[in-house]
């Protein structure tokens, strides 16, 4: 039977169901990532962000909440130029964060 609509999926981040394995592993390897204060300097200076919707701040926050879908494509836009690392007030090695997340999300062999 055609209903003309489907049941909407919940938009909420369900921390009870999300698989936190990758999230935990990343925080274990780069604990400083947890120190992000969401100032957004990385996004403001981002060469990629000037041309696309890519936001490292948002991407890593999603990872830390166990939401991974679509993030690899986002991170793959990054040119690794390192400006974000230079402006980060909490001294997070953002390039390491990007590489690690990409690796854990299956970019590398």
């Amino acid at each position, binding site marked *: 039977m055609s209903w003309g609509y489907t049941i909407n999926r919940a*938009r*909420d*981040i*369900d*921390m*009870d169901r999300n698989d936190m394995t990758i999230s935990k592993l990343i*925080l274990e390897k780069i*604990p*400083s990532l*947890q*120190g992000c*204060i*969401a100032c957004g300097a990385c996004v403001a200076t981002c060469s990629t962000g000037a041309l696309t919707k890519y936001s490292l*701040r*948002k991407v890593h*926050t*999603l990872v*830390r*909440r166990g*939401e991974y879908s679509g993030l690899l494509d986002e991170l793959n836009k990054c040119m690794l130029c390192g400006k974000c690392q230079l402006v980060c007030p*909490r001294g997070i090695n953002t390039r390491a964060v990007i590489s690690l997340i990409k690796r854990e999300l299956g970019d590398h062999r």
Partner: protein
Amino acid sequence: MNKEVIIIGGGVAGMQCAISLAEMGVKPTIIEKSDKLGGKLNDWYKLFPTFTSASEVLNPLKDMINELGVDVKLSSEVTKLEPKSVTLADGTTMSADAIVICSGFEVFDARLKEEYGYKIYDNVITSVDLERMFCEGSVQNLDKNSPSRIAILHCVGSRDEKVCQTHCSRVCCVAGVKQAIELKELYPKSEIFNFYMDIRMFGCGYEELYKEAQIKHNIHFVRGRISEAAQTIDSKIQIKSEDTLIGRPLKMTVDLLVLMVGMSAGKSNNSFATTDGINLNTSGFISPKNIFTECVSSDVDSIFYAGTVTAPKNIGESITEGVAAAHKVAKFIKL
């Protein structure tokens, strides 16, 4: 010297004010409504940002009060305040040359934020309850050996017009960070999430403590106010907020929800404000004469303030105001 100074309230500000006055040769009288000196500090475990025991601050003050022979009237409540006298609940009237109001604040009644289920669900507690549990050495329903999830909600009774608390209570941010670290140390396997609207680390060493909580203790900070809490079938608490940094609603089930209750204006402020020259601000704290230069003075020459009666403050600030008020009193009574 036969000048009389009455200090209303025997918390840290009142005690320090009394000590400073006594050191200058005045014999002040502290009127304390509870049965002991120390105020809220009696219920605190360790103090941010240094994890100093509350008793390490409180005991020296108490010792000084004893040493200096300050007159302390316990279990006495001021029911009427006049420029040169106070009337106590038992009907006695005491006259004074100067009065220092150090009556402090009230802990916000978390029951008013009904949606968080305080006193309705067993696993919703306040930061004040948690301090008591730390003093007792363990937190209810948490097991050291099994992982648990704990949510700490900041700004309960602060910055919330729905409960007529428009002000920021200032210290809860760092207290929440402190308690998160203490919980993590007590329950190393637990996962702790602090839900905040803004993190306001105004004091020396506070920001460092915040960073330590994040990086060293892996405490999660989620920017978003929990909007509701509900009990699940296994007596856990399901909470909902938005992760505003992502822009999506977030929900999770926690074993314990700690509400960082803010500072509400003292209940007695209203009755003090019936005296001419004593005015309340929007959140019910008493407005000092001038928040820059006369922050311990009132518009009544003989009435002074110290501590959180005028606004939320930390312990150091309250003690400093105790000294400042003593100085102003001394000048007023022409020591």
